[in-house]
């Protein structure tokens, strides 16, 4: 039995209708319109041209680089994000509030500034940067710098989607597991991780989407060297600058589609699992309504 969906009543008042129309119009104006315009432009010259734009060696290089950065950033920030959320929610230590507050810094400052910070700290002229470079491990204008930039701008995403769930479930389940004999690791991967999995998945999906689309920080840190440090978004930028917009359109469609599919796919899986675990079948002794799992 599916949980009953709230039905819109037929007797809608005029303010309600007006509000719905306003919301739809706003959505169309801001999101749907531009997306459709982009798709039309990209596919206007025909499928062959799209294919040709995609197989351009520079485009492929750029996409591969973006993929590399995205994979490393997503894996490291997911693992680190979970650890950080657990520490911030479960532990009490001096400076916790400061860390908690500063965690949103990557959201608060422009990515360009983030890139600038990295150049100052790790650039060829800095102490750390020049030292590392002399060991044959350059950071800025190379892949490590770009990964650092990606990690910087996506740092809060997993933490902020996991922490509220940890907060909400409290530590009772973990305490029960330890009374039942489970050690720290068993409790983590059998109890904590499954409980926060949707927060983790949602946070990770946001990290993927954000890394795919990151531009400002990468522009500063990468040096934008074609075929070497040019990511997909930098490629889009260059194509527009060099009056070859079709390559930019196609690349944009690819990036947007991947991000969109990840988010929608996640939502779909989440809904089907939630239906399995949270649907009320029979309520034997008429306890109150089931609490809806909070959406994160």
């Amino acid at each position, binding site marked *: 039995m599916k949980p009953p969906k709230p039905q819109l009543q037929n007797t809608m008042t005029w303010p309600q209708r007006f509000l719905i129309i306003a919301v739809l119009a706003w959505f169309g104006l801001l999101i749907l319109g531009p997306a459709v315009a982009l798709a039309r432009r990209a596919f206007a010259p025909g499928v062959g041209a799209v294919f040709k734009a995609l197989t351009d060696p520079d485009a492929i290089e750029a996409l591969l680089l973006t993929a590399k950065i995205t994979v490393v950033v997503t894996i490291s920030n997911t693992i680190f994000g979970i650890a950080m959320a657990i520490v911030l929610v479960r532990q009490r230590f001096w400076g916790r509030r400061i860390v908690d507050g500063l965690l949103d810094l990557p959201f608060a400052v422009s990515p360009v500034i983030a890139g600038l910070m990295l150049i100052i700290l790790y650039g060829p002229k800095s102490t750390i940067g020049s030292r590392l470079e002399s060991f044959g491990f350059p950071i800025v204008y190379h892949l490590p710098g770009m990964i650092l930039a990606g990690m910087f701008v996506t740092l809060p995403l997993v933490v902020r989607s996991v922490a509220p769930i940890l907060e909400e479930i409290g530590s*009772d*389940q973990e*305490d*029960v*597991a*330890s*009374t*039942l*004999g*489970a*050690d720290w690791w*068993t409790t983590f991967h*059998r*109890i904590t991780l*499954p*409980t926060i*999995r949707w927060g983790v998945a949602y946070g990770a999906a946001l990290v993927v989407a954000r890394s795919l689309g990151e531009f400002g920080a990468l522009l500063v840190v990468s040096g934008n060297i074609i075929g070497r440090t040019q990511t997909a978004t930098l490629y889009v930028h260059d194509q527009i600058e060099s009056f070859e917009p079709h390559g930019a359109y196609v690349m944009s469609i690819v990036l947007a589609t991947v991000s969109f599919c990840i988010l929608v796919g996640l939502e779909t899986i989440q809904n089907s699992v939630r239906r*399995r*675990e*949270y*649907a*009320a*079948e029979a*309520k*034997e*002794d*008429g*306890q109150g309504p*089931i*609490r809806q*799992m909070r959406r994160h």
Partner: protein
Amino acid sequence: MDIVVRNLSKRFGNFQAIDNVSFAIPSGQLVALLGPSGSGKSTILRAIAGLETPDSGSIELVGEEATNLPTQQRGIGFVFQHFALFRHMTVRQNVAFGLEIQKLPKCEIQGRVEELLKLVQLTNFADRYPLQLSGGQRQRVALARALAPKPRVLMLDEPFGALDAKVRDELRVWLRRLHDESHVTSLFVTHDQQEAFEVCDQVVVLNHGKVEQIGPPQELYERPASPFVTEFLGQVNILRHETILGMNLHESRPLPLQIPGSTGGSIYVRPHDLEISREQNDLPGWPARIKRLTPLGWLARVELILPDGTPVHVQITQANSLELGLENGLNVFVRPRDLKIFDESNKAAAAMNYVI
């Protein structure tokens, strides 16, 4: 003695949660830690389970020193107020969890899980997820999960606190029956004296992190050791010593109300330990006026006013009230059958109990 706690103390910042608490719980008993919120009862339970580290004191479980033992090795079953079921696991998986940790063979786990599901009457719900169960069912799953690895002691932290009244009553009776069958030494935290009385063999009354009194429920009720215990376990009238001394008691049989070495102190009388009569007979009694008579089914509540204005509540049967022909505004005599005097200048002094 299965659980021995000695001189346990725990402080959270400026708040003394447990203050030098000691008690011992005999094997096979079901014992309640009873106290108002903030009395430290949950903290004591969590300290015994190893979920909280005490500042000082020692804990012994089944004859074994356990103060520094990790929770995992204490052999404790723990039931939380809000069930703490593993949401992503079915009922069966929840119950099996502790057994899987012990790495028992699969068939043995299956057998034990079935046995427990039968015990808590949830066999038909084995493949449900926790959120598909009612509150009462969830708490039974939590209990089955705690009992599955055959714990040496069972701890229940306000286990029925999150349930509605009807389910709570049923589960109390059921828990008592379950305990009579399994005999696992159990410690039960509650703030509800009714619950403690119904379910437990012994009650440890706590207040401000200290033990006020330990004993079987009826004994605590009849012979409370302190004003706190008297007030916490049911309704009571508190009368000032001076009020009573100055009153016209029966001259030939005065009440023995002198407290040795003290002039202060209060007198505690339960509403059902007072008798009302229309005329002053042979027995000591105080004159009083009925301010308000409220019949409550088979009982009647009588609110009396003593001559100096002190209000006194009395409970008598409705039959008794009709027999006496009580009505509002009537002048009567009231006589205590049983009263307790506490010397407030010296709280450690034993309470005096008078049965008249």
